[in-house]
């Protein structure tokens, strides 16, 4: 039984080398990719949009994408939209953590509290991923939900999936 690749959400983080919120953005993104939603997410290096080729620039046209930005300059959002495609959602870490004490030293590495904040941001990203997957593949495009192709014939009253997509209502 061949498997159709799962639909995924792209996450593009700013690099934010100069600010602690940039490091939080980056680590939160990695936590989602590695631990929270490894099967549902992909990423790309933001600078690749300029340095890479057409394949890299197709990223946001291929995946619904969340930009994770450390500050209001919104480099991840603007860079993605300028070189690739519209983003589906934006998370601004400095706004999300407004009111929290942010230590300058977190620019380089996060201590325990910094890592806990990154984990909180990661949870927010993961919940947005879930929402986008649901909206994109179940509500907006109900006829294009990926499924595993089954060799057996459909049961009576059940429509056969075609080319790896399943019709509305197919469970």
């Amino acid at each position, binding site marked *: 039984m061949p498997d159709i690749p799962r639909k995924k959400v792209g996450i593009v983080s700013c*690099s934010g080398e100069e600010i602690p919120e940039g490091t939080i953005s980056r680590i939160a993104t990695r936590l989602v990719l590695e631990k929270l939603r490894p099967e549902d997410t992909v990423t790309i290096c933001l*600078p690749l949009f300029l340095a890479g080729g057409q394949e890299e620039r197709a990223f946001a046209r291929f995946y619904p994408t969340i930009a994770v930005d450390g500050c209001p*300059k919104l*480099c991840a959002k603007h860079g993605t939209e300028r070189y690739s495609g519209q983003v589906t959602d934006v998370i601004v870490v400095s706004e999300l953590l407004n009111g929290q004490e942010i230590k300058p030293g977190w620019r380089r590495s996060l201590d325990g509290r910094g890592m806990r904040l990154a984990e909180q941001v990661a949870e927010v990203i993961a919940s947005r991923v879930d929402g986008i997957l649901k909206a994109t593949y179940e509500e907006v495009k109900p006829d294009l939900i990926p499924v595993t192709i089954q060799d057996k014939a459909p049961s009576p009253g059940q429509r056969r999936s075609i080319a790896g997509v399943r019709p509305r209502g197919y469970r």
Partner: protein
Amino acid sequence: MSAHDKAIVIPCSGIGKVFGSVGREATYIVVDELRPKMAETLCLSLLVVGDQETVERVRGVPCIAVDGCPKACAQKNIELAGGVSAASLRVVDTYKAHRELKPEGVTVLDESGRKLARFLAQEIASAVDRVVAGR
């Protein structure tokens, strides 16, 4: 090359590969510990989006690119912004000289990754010395 007060060290910070994290860590070692008065860093993302202030910074100060993969995003983005890439270092070259230090952990570098970053940082610091001296 004329002498400058400072150099800007710009890592690719590649989020998909551990070498990107090594380059980023090495950059911080240089700007925070080894050459705090001679080197600074900036957000590569700001160059990507053409932030005017950042573009002017890289056009006025020699830059050192630190790249984690052959795509050389840091070097290319410096050049596309009209900056001068006075030196270009690749993490893989440092790794080839220290193959016993196979780094792991993109999110948080392991001990091997941090040691490798220390070696790379020494190379970056030497490049900073050359660039600032105008050699």
